[in-house]
């Protein structure tokens, strides 16, 4: 499903270079839920953006369902991202001047679907994320939890197989965080592959996640914790 082999990432700044990811190897199966854990600066966000093809590795391979996403021309990488990957960001990253419905619509726009088909998918997704009652509200008028659910709806609207979450609970209170974990569980039951990068202890013993991968200074620390 997701295959990462010998992945390196080095940032070059004038004459200093920092290696942020150092020989990462990871195989994630369809339907798995992976939790990347590590302190701030350990390279979780960098790794997630490589998986989504948002950033290019310095060397190594990332295969998403057999496609080498980091070496695809932009047109194909974008298509892969649009169809197969749903992203949930640390700061929700909504368009503040657009309504909830319009925000959720965005990933489908380049697909060439007509507006009726898109509206249908948006409605489904809004229901799934439990935010349809606010669909005409402006994104800037939402509470943190509502924003998060809008972001979830947006991630799900193209019905992707893979969901990548970067610090999804960093800006949420405890109740909303628990609610988010509930939604993740539902998605897991739907058979989605889920990768969560977080340092929130709430994720330490979630029932449905079988793998917690600790990261440290750009490497995966030996002794992967498996809840079983």
């Amino acid at each position: 499903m997701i295959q990462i082999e010998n992945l390196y990432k080095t940032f070059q700044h004038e004459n200093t270079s920092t290696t942020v990811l150092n020989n990462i190897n990871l195989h994630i199966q369809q339907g798995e839920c992976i939790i990347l854990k590590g302190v701030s600066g350990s390279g979780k966000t960098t790794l997630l953006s490589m998986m989504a093809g948002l950033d290019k590795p310095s060397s190594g391979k990332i295969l998403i369902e057999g496609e080498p996403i980091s070496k695809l021309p932009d047109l194909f990488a974008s298509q892969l991202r649009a169809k197969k990957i749903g992203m949930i960001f640390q700061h929700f990253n909504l368009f503040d001047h657009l309504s909830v419905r319009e925000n959720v619509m965005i990933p489908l726009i380049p697909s060439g679907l007509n507006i009726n088909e898109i509206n249908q998918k948006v409605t489904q997704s809004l229901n799934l994320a439990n935010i349809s009652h606010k669909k005409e509200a402006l994104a800037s008028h939402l509470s943190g939890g509502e924003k998060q659910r809008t972001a979830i709806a947006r991630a799900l609207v193209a019905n992707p197989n893979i969901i990548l979450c970067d610090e999804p609970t960093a800006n949420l209170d405890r109740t909303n965080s628990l609610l988010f974990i509930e939604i993740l569980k539902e998605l897991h039951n739907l058979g989605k592959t889920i990768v969560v990068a977080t340092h929130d202890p709430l994720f330490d013993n979630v029932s449905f996640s079988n793998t917690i991968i600790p990261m440290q200074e750009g490497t995966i620390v030996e002794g992967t914790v498996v809840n079983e």
Partner: protein
Amino acid sequence: MNEILFSNPVIVYLLSELILFVLLLIAFIISIRVLIHWDFESFSPLQFKLEQQAYLVTTITLFVFSMKFLLLLYFAFTVDSLASLIAGAMCSAGVIDANEYGSPLLALKLLILFGLTLWIWVNFYDLRTKNYQWFKEKSWIFMVMFIFITIELLLDFTYFTHIDTHQPVSCCSALFGQLEGANPLPFGLNISTLLILFYLLFALVILTLLTHQSLLYIVANILFLYIAYFAVVYFFGTYIYELPTHKCPFCMLQKEYHYVGYLLWISLFLGSYIGINSAITALWLKEENQASIKIVMSLLSFFVLLCSTYVAVYYFKNGVLL
């Protein structure tokens, strides 16, 4: 300063050509850099940057192409508007013939449009591959086109600065009319054999198009283009003007003839360009495109039909042929 340079359409036209050239120059410089350093397998940040810069080249070329297409029409119009300024000129034919740069310039413009359509074709297939397979080919076409366009710009300025408004030029009847004894038609044809050849070639073009015989098709279409030009000027045109002695490829662009010339020449050239380009890419890149066959068929058929209709309508109205 030359009076012609004060003519508003000429100023607008030259300015537009100049601006487009500046854009192309930028694209050209980027292209060279990209071509030198291009290595698709590499993971270096440079390669990723080059891939992004290639988008700029693509955007500029597409923009320039669409503008060049419109500018060719505008050029035809500009030249036509100059006819009233130049002694003896009745239509564009005389203006184009006002100095020795006019005809090469027009021919070069048609060639450049052809090159740019070829570039668009290759670009289309290139973006459809997962490793920019045709990138080098595409870039080389661009380079060659850039050289042509540079020459075109120079010719543009030379042409318009060297028109003498007082030197009388010939009108189209003198340029295209039959001189005593001399046959203007190629291959020693006469009007009836020209027409037979015209329709035969059209049939051959359609046949080779439908049977995907690319090489034969290219030859047939180039021949057809050549013969169609003469057929329009020396036969069909006289029916458009309804005057057996009026032989001119330009007058039909004027309002008196409902601008039918634009329709005629655009359908002929666009159809041929698309067709020949598809055939070239089919031979060269082994890429076939079904949609273009339909487009080419309808454009060329439209052209032939339009020509023939003029003759038929004249016959119905007057009961005789010219």
